[in-house]
């Protein structure tokens, strides 16, 4: 080595900066030695992806059948468990509908990015299914939901104000994730995915800690991530109330027995509206009108705020970070070099190029942050408006937005129990009306089911 070094330095000095001749020319072999080809391992077969997609679609289909036609909680639980094992631990959480939001956003904004068909399908299927059958995907297919669902031991009821307040975070997270994916800076949903580290059994320590905390919370606050963080849940919340079929607690008429009241660990059961002292309609209308006027004001104000904070968001981008660092180095405000700044300087490219690229990205983020802010304002305003609208509800129903279709409430209903032959007496509503007789199914068969 030591003998070699002067020779090397001489060679290095003699050679130019660009692509050059090899320092040690390739030997001319005399024994007929043939140069081997570079070993390239062939990619994994695409058949895997086909299988994954087939399993994905099948799991959704089975979920619909179990929840709506069998109404059988234990089977739904096994489907959840299967999804946790297959999509979670076997496929390592990487057929992810939650993350596919970003792929679609980047696919629309960046023509050079090719959206993988798998990601397109994983985005499309659960959302379209939600328009017909509600959040079946959440109940039985999503591995992130599954891992929280199986650790639920003692669900606590979260007060409504806290539920709504924390729930706003998911909307903000979705806006931020779409914005950063749109400008091509970062895929934060993947980066901060709290449970994928468990599926892979390795991950950055900070994310693992977040994962453990969220999982511990989910033991007592059911599906904490789904309810308050998951960006995809926002889309489900918007689409699920439109769904063609909705999960019903009772298979027939509600008898107002209140037995299902605490059966939902996710706070998605709505009580009937009390009949006593409704506020005058005129007052409600005035309040609603005031809020609706407020919505655009909020949107504009938040858009302004978003633009003000744009520099913070643009720091998510590697190029912007690097430009900042080099700027500080040039100004003499920081000592030394980072790996990245050294690597950039070694390329010999002018620093001004980097600054210009960073400025372009900052410009895009500035625009994006405006939209992001407007989105947050809109969400806050419309949430107020929705809360101001009162609808009369008779009987206990699921809140289609929050209901993840887990089927837990079904058996708490005495009408369901009666129809399954688990109790012998027909429940009677307070006003004396009876739910209809069970359809012609023989009862003996239902007992064994």
């Amino acid at each position: 080595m030591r003998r070699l070094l002067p020779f090397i330095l001489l060679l290095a000095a003699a050679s130019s900066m660009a692509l050059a001749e090899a320092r040690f020319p390739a030997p001319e072999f005399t024994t007929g030695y043939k140069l081997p080809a570079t070993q390239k391992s062939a990619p994994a077969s695409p058949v895997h992806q086909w299988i994954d997609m087939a399993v994905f679609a099948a799991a959704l289909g089975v979920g619909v059948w179990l929840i709506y036609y069998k109404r059988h909680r234990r089977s739904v639980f096994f489907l959840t468990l299967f999804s946790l094992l297959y999509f979670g631990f076997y496929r390592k959480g990487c057929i992810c509908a939650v993350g596919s939001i970003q792929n679609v956003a980047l696919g629309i904004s960046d023509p050079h990015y090719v959206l993988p068909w798998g990601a397109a399908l994983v985005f499309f299927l659960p959302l379209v299914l939600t328009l017909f059958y509600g959040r079946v995907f959440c109940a039985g297919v999503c591995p992130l939901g599954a891992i929280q669902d199986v650790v639920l031991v003692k669900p606590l009821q979260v007060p409504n104000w806290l539920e709504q307040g924390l729930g706003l975070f998911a909307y903000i997270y979705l806006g931020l994730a779409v914005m950063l994916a749109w400008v091509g800076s970062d895929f934060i949903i993947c980066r901060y995915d709290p449970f994928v580290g468990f599926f892979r059994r390795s991950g950055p320590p900070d994310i693992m800690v977040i994962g453990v905390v969220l999982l511990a919370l989910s033991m007592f606050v059911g599906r904490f991530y789904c309810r308050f963080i998951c960006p995809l849940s926002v889309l489900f919340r918007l689409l699920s109330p439109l769904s063609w079929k909705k999960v019903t607690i009772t298979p027939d008429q509600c008898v107002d027995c209140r037995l299902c009241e605490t059966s939902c660990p996710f706070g998605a059961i709505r009580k009937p509206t009390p009949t006593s002292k409704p506020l005058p309609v005129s007052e409600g209308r005035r309040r609603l009108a005031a809020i609706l006027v407020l919505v655009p004001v909020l949107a504009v104000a938040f858009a302004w705020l978003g633009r003000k904070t744009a520099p913070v968001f643009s720091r998510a981008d590697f190029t912007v970070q690097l430009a900042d660092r080099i700027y500080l180095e040039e100004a003499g405000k920081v000592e030394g070099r980072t790996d990245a700044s050294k690597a950039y300087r070694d390329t010999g490219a002018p620093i001004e190029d980097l600054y210009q690229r960073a400025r372009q990205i900052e410009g895009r983020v500035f625009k994006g942050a405006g939209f992001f802010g407007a989105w947050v304002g809109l969400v806050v305003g419309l949430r107020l408006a929705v809360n101001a609208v009162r609808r009369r509800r008779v009987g206990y129903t699921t809140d289609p937005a929050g209901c993840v279709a887990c089927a837990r409430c079904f058996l708490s209903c005495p009408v369901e129990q009666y129809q399954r032959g688990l109790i012998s007496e027909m429940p009677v509503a307070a006003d004396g009306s009876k739910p209809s007789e069970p359809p012609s199914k023989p009862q003996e068969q239902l007992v064994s089911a």
Partner: protein
Amino acid sequence: MAEQPEQTSRRSFLTAGTRAAAALAIGGAVGAATTRSRTASTAAAPAGHDKMVWQINPYKCTQCGKCATNCVLNPSAVKCYHVYPICGYCKICTGFFKAQPNALNTGAENQICPTAAIQRTWIEDQYYEYKIIKELCIGCAKCVKGCTTFANGSLFLQIDRKLCVDCNQCSIATVCPPQAISRIPVSREDGYLLKTKTRTM
């Protein structure tokens, strides 16, 4: 009595209408995301609507060692590759031997590779062949650094397409100091960016 069914039908009609609009919006978003990229890539290159895969630009790589530690896989999907036409078949290979080795033999204490993933075979005269044993390689770039800094740079890191799980966002790319990792279309060079020339700085 006549009002009741009419009201519900109006409500269900509106819901159905919104549902159809939402379905169109979802379909539209996916459609826009796929078609936009397709037209653009066909215009730019014959690559068409190819799948894109993560690859390292070996000329940009600075051998920082983050590939070994930042991949979601353990051991990393990044492996050392060897392009033989560039190799000088050196007897004193700076990608194989540590600086100032005790002896020029294959003893573990003399090797730069922490997992002994380089196989050294004598060919003829002064010339030795160096072969990477993929199963042992952890992508730490120690040999690449030795070879690129002092010799021809025929050893370089690349992402193994069999192992790579095609993450949405390559977790090495987010920390790569020279930003050497990007997506390339599969049809280009079989989806592998290999070195064709040496480079000296």
